[in-house]
């Protein structure tokens, strides 16, 4: 039996936050909270300040001397997240699955490659220096030529980090031989047959590598040893929380969450991806019920310049709506680049932040959701579905520094409404969503609790959500 209390700490890229939770059923509660800026040179200092505060000790207590009042669990998105390069064969098949597996394991795709790796692909891979290379291709018994050739290219590269091979089983031994002495882990194929999806072994291996290899830097491994705990990528915790919510509370099925941050926008959904009917035909892979996507070009601070390009059209229309110029937005983003810690000053800057947040929500949802294309056949009208159907999603949760402070649903509702006028394709966005804010900012911390007590984590999460009324003012 575990202790009824747990300490949860989240080492974010900007802040290190923590809380002590009492897990007593049926009314778990938050006993104490603490936060301080993340000490990026040595993560232990920020960690110990928060832990000391949570244990009622002076914050300057050295970490070696802290006797925690409860078991400690922590997660980290330090270093800007877990960077993964995905290598697959066909873009719509194994490569697409590799991307989904990496993102649902808490990773961020920094680059992906299809078919045969070229010399310049390898140079690019060496340049982006991923934490992990996820390498696959071919169904079991299918194509071996590409993975063999790509294995040789990887073996000749300067990349020396961990490689996960999740491709054609028939080639696995030879691929591992070619890649040795590099650290290569062979797991079952993520697409053993066409239309059969097997992401779990890859996800498990990514988690394991994160624990063993990635946390070793910046003092995290000492924390792990000292407090007899394990570390996980922050988004993986949130992913597990999103898995647990409908499992523990079936009335909360068909749910989405958006975590909008400075560098990325993460979108989570837990709903059936495809409902078979006579008039809908699914094209491409059947996506998993629980899905996470991460958009590295959508964010309010570090990624703001990338957002200006990616969301140019959306932002232009939004600026027109509020009567501000594009020049004003560019100037504001330039200012954010000079001073990333800048807090919006005055109504103009607040409006610009709100417009950027709206654009992030819109594009993250647009890319996460699937679509319908209408075609007429001799048998009548048929819809071709690609990607995931989110129409039945009833609840959308906004999390992260910006969305958790929303006072009303205006911003998210506006972005979602725009999905319905997206052109020739019908975006399969939630039809009648109700919006919530993770107002207490507990989601990342509760992610750590799911493995200990999913009931307590889900109860605390749902109790802390603030339902957002529909208002048209910007938040």
């Amino acid at each position: 039996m575990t202790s009824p209390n747990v300490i949860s700490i989240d080492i974010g890229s900007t802040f290190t936050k923590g809380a002590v939770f009492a897990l007593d059923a049926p009314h778990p509660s938050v006993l104490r909270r603490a936060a301080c800026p993340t000490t990026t040179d040595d993560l232990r200092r920020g960690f110990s300040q928060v832990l000391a505060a949570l244990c009622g000790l002076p914050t300057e207590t050295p970490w070696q001397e802290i006797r925690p009042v409860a078991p400690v669990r922590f997660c980290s998105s330090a270093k800007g997240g877990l960077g993964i390069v995905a290598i697959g064969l066909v873009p719509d098949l194994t490569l697409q699955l590799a991307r989904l597996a990496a993102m649902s394991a808490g990773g961020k795709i920094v680059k992906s490659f299809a078919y045969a790796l070229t010399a310049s692909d390898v140079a690019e891979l060496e340049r982006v220096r991923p934490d992990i290379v996820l390498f696959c291709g071919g169904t079991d018994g299918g194509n071996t030529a590409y993975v063999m050739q790509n294995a040789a290219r990887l073996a000749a590269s300067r990349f020396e980090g961990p490689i996960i091979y999740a491709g054609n089983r028939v080639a696995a031994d030879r691929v591992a031989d070619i890649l040795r002495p590099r650290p290569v882990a062979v797991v079952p194929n993520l697409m053993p047959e066409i239309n059969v999806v097997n992401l779990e072994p890859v996800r498990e291996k990514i988690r394991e590598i994160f624990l063993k290899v990635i946390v070793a830097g910046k003092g995290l491994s000492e924390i792990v040893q000292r407090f007899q705990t394990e570390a996980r990528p922050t988004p993986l915790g949130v992913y597990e929380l999103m898995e647990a919510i409908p499992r523990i509370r079936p009335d909360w099925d068909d749910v989405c969450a958006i975590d909008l941050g400075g560098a990325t926008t993460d979108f989570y959904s837990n709903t059936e991806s495809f409902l078979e009917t006579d008039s809908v035909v699914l094209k491409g892979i059947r996506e998993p019920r629980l899905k996470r996507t991460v958009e590295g070009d959508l964010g309010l601070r570090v990624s703001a310049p990338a957002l200006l390009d990616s969301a140019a059209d959306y932002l232009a229309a939004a600026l027109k709506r509020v009567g501000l110029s594009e020049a004003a937005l560019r100037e504001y983003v330039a200012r954010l680049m000079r001073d990333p810690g800048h807090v919006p000053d005055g109504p103009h800057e607040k409006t610009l932040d709100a417009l950027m947040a709206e654009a992030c929500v819109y594009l993250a949802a647009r890319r996460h959701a699937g679509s319908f294309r209408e075609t007429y056949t001799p048998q009548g009208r048929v819809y071709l579905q690609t990607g995931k159907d989110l129409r039945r999603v009833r609840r959308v949760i906004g999390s992260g520094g910006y969305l958790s402070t929303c006072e009303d649903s205006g911003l998210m509702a506006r972005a979602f409404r725009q999905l319905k006028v997206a052109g020739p394709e019908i975006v399969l966005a939630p039809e009648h969503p109700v919006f919530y804010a993770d107002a207490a900012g507990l989601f990342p911390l509760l992610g750590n609790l799911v493995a200990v007590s999913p009931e307590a984590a889900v109860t605390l999460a749902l109790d802390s959500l603030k339902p957002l009324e529909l208002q048209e003012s910007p938040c």
Partner: protein
Amino acid sequence: MENPTQKPTIILGVIGADCHSVGNKILEMFFTNEGFKVVNLGVMVSQSEFIDAAIETDAGAILVSSLYGHAEIDCQGFRERCVEKGLDSILLYLGGNLAVGKTPFDVVEKKFKAMGFDRVFPPDVDLKEVAVLLRKDLAERSQLQPAPCP
């Protein structure tokens, strides 16, 4: 061809906007019983879906069905696309109601062979005969192929 069971892999599907699914299921059962590893993509399959599946599974043949009379438009450029994607020597079979009206079958066959299909079958073909031809063609192709990568 390289798969654990040593069964030849074939891709099956109904091309274009065609939703006829009964014959497709029968073909899947038949070729499976004949000892092929069948990857059935079902109905309303596009050219690129056939080709992508063939690449990932290292299939030796693509068997295309068309029942609704639009085969000519749907199959246009199929062989060229295979070549572009590196499937230079894959076998392409086509069968079904391939033209509307009373066009003699030899005219239909000639047209689709000119498009690059290796064999073309009318709707009433004996499937046993197709299986025999398929095994023979696959055996010939595999002798033409360069040895697989070491």
